[in-house]
């Protein structure tokens, strides 16, 4: 980006709340069902049908509000956003306009360069999703699938406080982590349950007024968000430098070309004629509702990350990685609880972190599994790490044992025994093996004593060979040094 320009970015995130039923009807919300099998009379807007708010969706909105330290409105108002479109059955979308359920929160966002950005979230409001137009199923006709119509969304609106594509993506990732952490959204971007529109403008650096903004829609991956914003900033700067004005408009991101272009079609709906929905009384939330949610709130990612660093002594990088999602952090803590049940034990914590982020992550990745489906339980992993800590097996053999556990061969101890991987750390037995090797290679012994240190590794290898890799490497080293001393 040119030094002369500053980008100003705000994100509108649509998080689909993971409720069993829709925001205003009892129809199911599961993804991927046959078209229109999850559409009730209410979703199809048959005459005389009425919306009834889903309290579960409201609870999830409260949880999000509490997690960002926001104000939960004791009374918020559902409003109608009126426009005509075939996938909008009522001819209006029920949303919240003037009085949203969540207002004024802050989310700390960790950037790659180590800085922390406090992103102000202006509001989060409940609204229903629209249906889907299906253009390719019928010849010369458009089909309408109402399965998605009425699905509950939490629209999370940041203040225009982000200044680069990297900041925008870091913020988006943090929100993504948070909603999954809270269990209010599954975060699946492919299925559209976590979507994002970006408002982008640029202005000369130092200017305090905002430039004209464009809204980019249809960006469904972190990478695309970054690319789309990057493109849009460059496009706007180029236009301004050429003396052109920016037109306020909605633009679509084309991932194939990494470009944004003006959106066509859809009724140019500048005037949505918002007004309070007369079918829905104001949504009342009493202090007891809020306190109930507060009490049930899990430890948040940022708090946990700090605890990992400050109380457990983990490096920041490990803490960051572990806290990317709650299941991983929970797995780590469960393993650590078995490995070091008593007091804080930084070495144990580091060991557990290494394995969760190393072997386990690699195995999950390779199998394409979620941590919830891990084939090794935290306790089983801890059993293995216990043996490793005791010196009962070597680091390399531990990896072999882990692979065998992953393959379903049983628990660590059983595999160690069956494969004869127990490490020899009995000094007598090791001394005998060392003596045998030294007796076998007198010439090399003499050379070594003469000052050729490199031969030390040769002897270690020979001892390992003789003990089928079970010798405790550090002890062997020490013994050899002692016996080969000039």
């Amino acid at each position, binding site marked *: 980006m040119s030094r002369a320009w500053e980008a100003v970015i705000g994100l509108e995130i649509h998080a689909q709340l993971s409720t069993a039923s829709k925001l205003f009807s009892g129809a199911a919300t599961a993804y991927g069902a046959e078209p229109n099998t999850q559409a009730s009379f209410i979703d199809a807007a048959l*005459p005389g049908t*009425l919306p009834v708010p889903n309290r579960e969706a409201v609870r999830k909105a409260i949880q999000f509000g509490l997690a960002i330290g926001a104000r939960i409105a004791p009374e918020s108002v559902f409003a109608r956003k*009126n426009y005509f479109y075939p996938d909008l059955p009522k001819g209006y979308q029920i949303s919240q306009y003037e009085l949203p359920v969540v207002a004024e929160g802050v989310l700390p966002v960790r950037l790659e360069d180590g800085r922390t950005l406090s992103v102000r979230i202006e509001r989060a409001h409940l609204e229903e999703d629209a249906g889907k137009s299906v253009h390719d199923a019928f010849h010369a006709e458009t089909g309408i699938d109402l399965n998605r119509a009425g699905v509950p969304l939490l629209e999370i609106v940041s203040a225009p406080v982000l200044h680069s594509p990297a900041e925008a993506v870091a913020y988006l990732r943090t929100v993504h982590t948070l909603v999954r952490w809270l269990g209010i959204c599954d975060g699946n971007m492919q299925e559209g349950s976590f979507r994002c529109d970006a408002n982008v403008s640029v202005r000369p650096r130092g200017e305090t007024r905002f430039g004209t903004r464009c809204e980019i829609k249809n960006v469904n991956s972190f990478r695309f968000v970054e690319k789309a914003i990057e493109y849009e900033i460059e496009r706007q700067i180029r236009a301004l430098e050429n003396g052109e004005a920016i037109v306020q408009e909605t633009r679509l991101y084309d991932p194939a070309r990494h470009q944004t272009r003006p959106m066509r079609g859809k009724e140019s709906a500048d005037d949505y004629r918002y007004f309070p929905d007369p079918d829905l009384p104001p949504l009342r939330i009493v202090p007891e509702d809020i306190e109930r949610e507060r009490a049930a709130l899990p430890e948040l990612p940022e708090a946990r990350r700090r605890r990992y660093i400050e109380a457990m002594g983990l490096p920041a990088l490990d803490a960051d990685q572990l806290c990317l999602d709650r299941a991983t952090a929970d797995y780590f803590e469960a393993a650590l609880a078995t490995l070091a049940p008593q007091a804080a034990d930084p070495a144990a914590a580091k060991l557990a972190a290494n394995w969760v982020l190393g072997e386990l992550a690699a195995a999950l990745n390779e199998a394409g599994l979620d941590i919830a489906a891990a084939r090794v339980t935290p306790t089983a992993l801890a059993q293995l790490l216990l043996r490793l800590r005791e010196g009962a097996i070597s680091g390399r053999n531990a990896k072999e044992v882990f692979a065998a556990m992953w393959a379903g061969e049983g628990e660590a101890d059983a595999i160690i025994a069956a494969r004869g991987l127990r490490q020899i750390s009995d000094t007598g037995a090791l001394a005998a093996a060392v003596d045998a090797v030294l007796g076998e290679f007198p010439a090399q012994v003499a050379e070594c004593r003469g000052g050729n240190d490199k031969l030390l590794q040769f002897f270690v290898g020979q001892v390992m060979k003789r003990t089928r890799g079970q010798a405790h490497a550090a002890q062997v080293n020490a013994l050899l040094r002692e016996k080969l001393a000039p």
Partner: protein
Amino acid sequence: MTVVELARRLRGGAVSARELAQQALDAARRRADLNAFIALDAERAEAAASAADAARAQGRDTPLLGIPFAHKDIFCTRGLRTTCASRMLADFVPPYDAHVTERLDVAGAVLVGKTNMDEFAMGSSNENSAFGAVANPWDGTRVPGGSSGGSAAAVAAGIVPFATGTDTGGSIRQPAAFCGITGLKPTYGRVSRYGMIAYASSLDCGGVLARTAEDCAHVLAALAGHDPRDATSAQRPVDDYVAALDQPWAGLRIGVAREYFGAGVDHGVAAAVHAALRALEQQGARLVDVSLRNAHHAIAAYYVIAPAEASSNLSRYDGVRYGHRCANPTSLEDLYTRSRAEGFGAEVQRRILTGTYVLSAGYYDAYYLRAQRVRRRIADDFAAAFAEVDLIAGPTTPTPAFRLGEKSGDPLALYAADVNTVAVNLAGLPAISLPAGFVDGLPVGLQLIGPAFAEARLLAAAHRLQQVTDWHTRTPGARP
């Protein structure tokens, strides 16, 4: 005959529900000249009547068991076409019952047909129906009132002892007044709106038209109560309306609102209403002057708020999923434009346009928000008055029924005639219109308004008046 009389005859075995249903169907066909019905359903009526007779034989005896009635064609009836008197819904068969439909079904009442109305309940003459105007049984050249005109005509002509109606700005009370019967609009939220096709959601209210207040009490008892499918449905327990009818009420204070007797009120109407009030006074009521200072703003506020909500409520009729769809649309916009232009009548289109306008950016504050402020003041006026009195009284309408076609070219004159009824909807209050005499052979209605959820008090006062007067027993002379 009244519901109570018919129930007595059913109980005594003098008549069966099947016979009553047949009589109602015959009467409806005989009086086809009224055009009170959009549809009759003999098959369904016979099945329901047989079930009622069987239940009675088993020992069941509830007030509405076996009583024939009609639904305004705004209440969804599963498997039975529900049109809202609109070409838009001419072929719409709901796959579900309205709450009101369910409740009367459960009560054992026998549905014989669906009554005519102003399209989407927009109108006060029943001339805005895709199925033609309805004649007033007292004078076939006059309107029955609206929008529940078919229901009022069917009850007044003795076809059914009661019918359901809806009241958004007077649509139960005004036709009840014009047709010389009793019409009850309950408190907003007392009767669920589920399955009642929306006109203006914050004002729409289901209710009943019958001959007497006592009958209204029996029907309201069946309809009232919380329904979780309507978020605006009241949680409050339901009073025993029937038991309350005969409770003693010494010293009931009735506020006489001077604004309801202002310019434009027919002298004969005013005289009849005063006479009815004197009759109540003789029964121990105390008449007190009250003032509703913002009453004259009610029409303006109503004709902003109701169209605003209607413009949004009626957006769903787009020709996409159900309802009228124009032939061979050339584009999406063409589909919308022609389907809606062909499907909606002139008055509906007028209100959609008005409503769209008042909600538009730049006009919202000046119209919609201002109307809401007026609405609050009107409600405050009522609240202040009810601190002094138990009920408020006045004429339901400024004049008796006008002639068919007399005002159809002048929507503003028609709107102005709603002057005494719309404020009640804006404040969400219960009110009843009951027969109070005649002017030139045309019925006059007395309106009693109560505080929220005071239906029992309203019905008791109306019942008392009907014990000492006989206006409600008068019936129009038999016609062809």
